[in-house]
């Protein structure tokens, strides 16, 4: 084993990390479990069957139900008027068909919530089925071709977001918690009482974070590609560059957050304060485009937004790195500003 001090510091970082089972779970297990959960919830499945009910009143109820049943996209039940109303209210069926008007005429009445997309779909499909059953024919011939594209599913959207979240958590927790813990225990003061190089101490964190992050990213991406077929359309060099620059930006942020605090409580508050807005705003689970236009410049300036946008552009669209210069500039600015300020105000004892 080498007696070089930088090497010693780096191996110590790894030992401290791998001997902490919780830390291993949060950086490897958690993103994978999240991807599995989301992948199952939003998995690609055959087009949904729409559930509808026919209120069994008068002689035409059964005829209507037969007509509707001919459309494979519809599942129909014949229910008493009361049961049908209950099924509609509880959301078990999207629409109820009531035969005839009050005067017993031949028309039908559709009962549904017009603000629900599936109810409106049901309205169109049921109407079509009922009209055909009553003898309406097509005026124009039609044909179907299904286009189900990889890269436009929810899982494809969320995996780059999870990767971005992992990079952020690793940088901020990995540096922030550990450094403050050492300061709290007087270990930082003990270390600067030796000839240890302060630059090597900080470098040991950066190097160990980058190595761990490489493993985390490979595990998460490999898993997502193998299990869900998430596309990786960009070049490997580009995505590696995005990950490394992001890791350095969040490492700088972690160092800045940890630069003064003497208690775990204090640094935890700062970490949550900085991460929570990004979890919500930066498009991890849903697109940040959903927020009002006026706050978009602010959202675009957050490092996690830049990371997520760049990862999605690379993985889903295969965009070249040069076209992602705005995101890389945001990350570079965060990295430089955080490191410079953190080193200036860092409390070594």
């Amino acid at each position, binding site marked *: *084993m080498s*007696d*070089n*001090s930088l*090497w*010693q*510091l780096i191996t*110590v970082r790894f*030992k*401290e990390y791998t*001997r*902490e089972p919780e830390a291993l779970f949060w950086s490897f297990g958690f993103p994978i479990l999240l991807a599995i959960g989301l992948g199952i919830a939003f998995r690609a499945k055959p087009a949904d069957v729409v559930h509808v009910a026919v209120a069994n009143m008068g002689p035409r109820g059964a005829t209507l139900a037969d007509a509707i049943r001919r459309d494979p996209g519809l599942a129909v039940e014949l229910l008493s008027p009361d049961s049908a109303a209950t099924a509609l209210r509880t959301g078990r069926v999207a629409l109820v068909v009531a035969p005839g008007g009050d005067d017993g005429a031949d028309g039908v009445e559709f009962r549904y919530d017009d603000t629900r997309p599936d109810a409106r779909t049901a309205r169109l499909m049921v109407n079509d089925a009922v009209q055909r059953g009553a003898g309406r024919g097509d005026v124009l011939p039609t044909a179907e071709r299904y286009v189900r594209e990889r890269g436009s599913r929810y899982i494809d959207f969320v995996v780059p977001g999870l990767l971005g979240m992992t990079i952020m958590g690793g940088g901020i927790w990995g540096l922030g918690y550990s450094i403050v813990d*050492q300061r709290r*225990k*007087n*270990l930082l*003061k*003990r270390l*600067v*009482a*030796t*000839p*240890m190089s302060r630059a090597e101490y900080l470098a040991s964190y950066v190097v160990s974070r980058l190595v761990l992050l490489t493993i985390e990213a490979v595990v998460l991406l490999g898993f997502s590609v193998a299990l869900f077929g998430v596309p990786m359309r960009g070049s490997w060099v580009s995505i590696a560059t995005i990950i490394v620059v992001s890791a350095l930006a969040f490492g700088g942020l972690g160092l800045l957050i940890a630069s003064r605090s003497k208690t775990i409580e204090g640094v935890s508050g700062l970490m949550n304060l900085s991460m929570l807005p990004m979890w919500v705003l930066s498009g991890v689970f849903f697109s940040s485009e959903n927020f009002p236009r006026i706050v978009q410049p602010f959202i675009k300036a957050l490092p996690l937004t830049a990371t997520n946008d760049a990862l999605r552009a690379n993985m889903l669209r295969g965009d070249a790195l040069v076209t992602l210069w705005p995101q890389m500039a945001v990350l570079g600015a965060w990295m430089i500003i955080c490191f410079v300020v953190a080193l200036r105000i860092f409390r070594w*004892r």
Partner: protein
Amino acid sequence: MTAPHVTNPTPALLVQDLRKFYGDVRAVDGLDLSVASGECFGLLGPNGAGKTTTIEVCEGLLAPDAGHVELLGLEWRQHDRELRQRLGIQLQETQLGDKLTVEETVRLFRSFYARGRSVSEVIGLVQLEEKRGARVGKLSGGQKQRLALACAIVGDPDLLFLDEPTTGLDPQSRRQLWDLITDFKALGRTIVLTTHYMDEAEVLCDHVAIVDRGKVIALGTPLQLIGSLGAEHVIDFSLAPGSPPMDDAMLRSIDGVRTARSLAGGYELQVGALHRTVPALLSLLAQRRLELAHLTTHSATLEDVFVSLTGRQLRNE
């Protein structure tokens, strides 16, 4: 205050008129020290006397507000790197990483020094061979303290600072650490330690500075300081219940008594020689038909010196 007998022309540690204030609190208020090369020097005093502040200024961890500090003839401002290589430091209350083993911890500290002892040699010196593969978090208090000492001496320092090395340890662990410190001193290295245990200073230190309220109030060898009381022994006694009180003047008239004091429930005499004073005391009591309830004697200690200098006990600050 004059420096103690300096054998080497360059003192290992020289402190002149050191001052360090925290707001209105004068933690160190005009303190002078001179530690000769090769000796073990003790800073004694109650908690809050300014010992730790003084030692941390000497260690280059705190900047003084005023005063001059020189270590091994060097100053922090110009020779930071060289001094870090030549000093060994044990801080009060450092928790080394719980997840690392004893050997990994010592190896890490060894890697910071350009020269020094081997990892296994140092682990042997502090008698932690059996624990070399054990996690630091599983060690006892005494073992942790010995590991901290190992980290302090792994760079083979010329000057070793120990801040309360035995505070909180059981008697057996304290004695074990005293042996280690004595061994290190035998190698001709200089040690500066702080303690609030007077017995520790008497066992380990060649010279002692008693510090109170940020100043040195007494300086000398432990024997000189105890000798300055003018009394080598202390007799404590009390009389059977119902006895009439004795006045101090009568006690002072007994052969060999230097000072006499009435304490709650008894009397304290500082005396030069027990073999003359004890028989005289007993015959005085017999003559007065007074009955003893208890009588004990002990040799005068630095504790007695501190009490006589400040009128306060050391521990109950």
